[in-house]
């Protein structure tokens, strides 16, 4: 039997209203901090005005802000290094997701935590980009034949590359979805609307509509939904920001068709509006609705998304959450790989997991710092 206070979702109302609900008890404040931390959203909540928060909650907010500020410094530094490493690539270098939000200082960058830098380059420039990056110190992290083959033959990115001194990780993509996915954009079309990053010649981001569609795809065709609410909040902030530009909604729907990303676009518009109150015009919602799944599937998916998009917690309010996550994992693999390949991939993964555990040890170790 659990304490009733635990059952309440305090995080979603905080995101919708851009302030925590009034009159919270001490225990409820700690529940809000916990829900935000587990959702990867503590940094974003910490960006809200915290002057009337209790001191204990303010302390957690200050700690979270220190992390996001460190990340902003790091991303600016790394983009400088990337630009010089890739200055002779002869092809556009496109920043994706968190790195793009941060370099353009978009609202979705605020308080966002990310662990690696995602790049997109044309497929024709991929191997050249890889060798230029390794000359600048970014080395592949995968030393296993199956992984190398998996990435190079089927994936839409190279194995992650880690810098030997600074320990930053970059993922170099040539598309937004794996080569084996059922529907995916034609990679060349992603370069049609690039936006230059100020102060970094040769470095770009996707155009506004494409950037939003990538964020939508990332959430709604993904095997890892542990930070689903954070990803939904990104989409919400991007939509609110770009909606101020004339013709944005029409462009978004047109690009969804161009890039074959209509299904994730439908889900994203529906659930940002429902869960976070994003002001999506009704005409846009109904136009996107025709890209939804047929009704029996739609009903199941609705049950699934509603669970996944509530704050992660181990409380009974979340019952069904793990089933929902499992269904999405299966779905994501189904959408990304033909069945035969999927079966093979899962068998190899399972065998390898059995042979060696991976993870971190609890003993206290001072980290070795370099550079």
């Amino acid at each position, binding site marked *: 039997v659990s304490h009733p206070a635990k059952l309440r979702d305090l995080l979603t109302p905080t995101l919708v209203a851009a302030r925590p609900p009034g009159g919270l008890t001490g225990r409820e404040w700690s529940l809000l901090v916990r829900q935000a931390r587990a959702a990867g959203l503590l940094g974003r909540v910490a960006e809200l005005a915290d002057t009337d928060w209790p001191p204990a909650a303010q302390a957690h907010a200050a700690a979270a802000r220190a992390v996001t500020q460190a990340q902003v410094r790091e991303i600016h530094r790394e983009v400088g290094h990337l630009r010089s490493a890739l200055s002779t690539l002869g092809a556009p270098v496109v920043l994706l997701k968190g790195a793009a939000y941060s370099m353009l200082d978009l609202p979705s960058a605020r308080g966002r935590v990310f662990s690696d830098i995602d790049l997109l380059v044309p497929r024709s420039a991929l191997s050249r980009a890889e060798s230029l990056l390794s000359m600048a110190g970014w080395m592949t992290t995968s030393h296993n034949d199956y992984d190398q083959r998996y990435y190079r033959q089927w994936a839409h990115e190279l194995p992650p590359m880690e810098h030997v001194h600074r320990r930053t990780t970059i993922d170099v993509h040539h598309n937004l979805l794996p080569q084996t996915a059922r529907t995916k954009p034609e990679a060349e079309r992603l370069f049609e609307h690039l936006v230059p990053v100020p102060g970094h010649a040769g470095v770009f981001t996707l155009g506004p509509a494409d950037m939003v569609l990538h964020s939508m795809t990332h959430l709604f065709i993904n095997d890892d939904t542990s930070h689903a609410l954070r990803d939904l909040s990104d989409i919400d902030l991007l939509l609110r920001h770009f909606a101020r530009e004339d013709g944005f909604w029409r462009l978004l729907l047109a690009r969804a068709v161009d890039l074959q990303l209509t299904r994730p676009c439908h889900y994203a518009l529906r659930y940002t509006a429902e869960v976070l109150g994003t002001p999506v015009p009704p005409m846009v919602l109904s136009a996107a609705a025709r890209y939804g799944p047929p009704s029996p599937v739609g009903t199941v998916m609705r049950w699934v998304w509603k669970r996944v998009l509530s704050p992660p917690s181990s409380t009974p309010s979340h019952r069904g959450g793990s089933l929902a996550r499992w269904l999405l994992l299966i779905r994501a693999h189904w959408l990304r790989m033909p069945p035969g390949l999927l079966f093979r991939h899962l068998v190899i993964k399972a065998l390898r997991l059995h042979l060696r555990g991976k993870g971190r040890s609890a*003993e206290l170790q001072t980290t070795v710092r370099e550079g």
Partner: protein
Amino acid sequence: VSRTVKHLGASECARRLGSSGGLRLRAAPFVLAVRSRVPAVQAAVHRVYADYPLVDDDAFVDFEVEVQWQRHGLRPWRQLAVFRLDGEEPFNPLPADQAFPLLEWGINWCVYSMCHQYLIVHAAVLERGGRAVLLPAPSGSGKSTLCAALAFSGWRLLSDELALIDPASGQVVPHPRPISLKNASIDVIRTHAPSAKLGSMVADTKKGVVAHFSPPDGSVDDQRPAHPAWVVVPRYVAGASACRLDLERAQGFMTLVENSFNYDVLGARGFEIIAAVVDHCDCFEFEYSSPTEAVAFFNSLSVTGTDK
């Protein structure tokens, strides 16, 4: 006078640890909610945390942690201990009998990986006469032995692992927690301070035998911060007599940086905080083998004042 864990009695303490709300206690400056159904953990918490104040059910909780037993996924006859924060498992499980050390390591991890409102240095901190000594050093240097020797000889324990430095004041905020000792140093301290309360001892960890002692009386509920006056890099050398080797301030600075958990997170502010700390400190290395001699050395230091 606030009620502490020992006022609960062993069975009520165990009941709370096993309940969904957990045992809620103040390990200043934090409030912890601890859950465990593991009998060895329940007994160890009751002994080691005996003097820690209880907090109201409605208080703000900084970290909700738990340590439970779990069967090994592929070898179900093997029991393992898992640590969870908010239901997440940040570490690999350990053998079942290491459940209590795992709880301690897990709580340390919560502090050093998340509490960036402080600059955090891997260091023991003790205070006497209003001035604090920082003992920054990696494991195996004799830091914990020296820390325990001083703590059980009248110095106030601020922390045996994690120095929390307040950026605004440059003072160390006390976070007294059970003192962890390993292998030979356990008997060294039991001989030096027979009254020290041993709360938990586990053999065969990756670090060897690990023991946890209750903090000395008076350390737990004293929340006064202290100004660092000495940065001392301890080194246990068998047979050596107590010996001080002066360090340049720059060396003291680098020692604190190297032992800091979040210097990089705080950026320029981290640099300023450490520079301000070192500006007011004598920095030296300290070789010793006898805890009694070491305590005498530090006692004389605390009465003579800074000699620079």
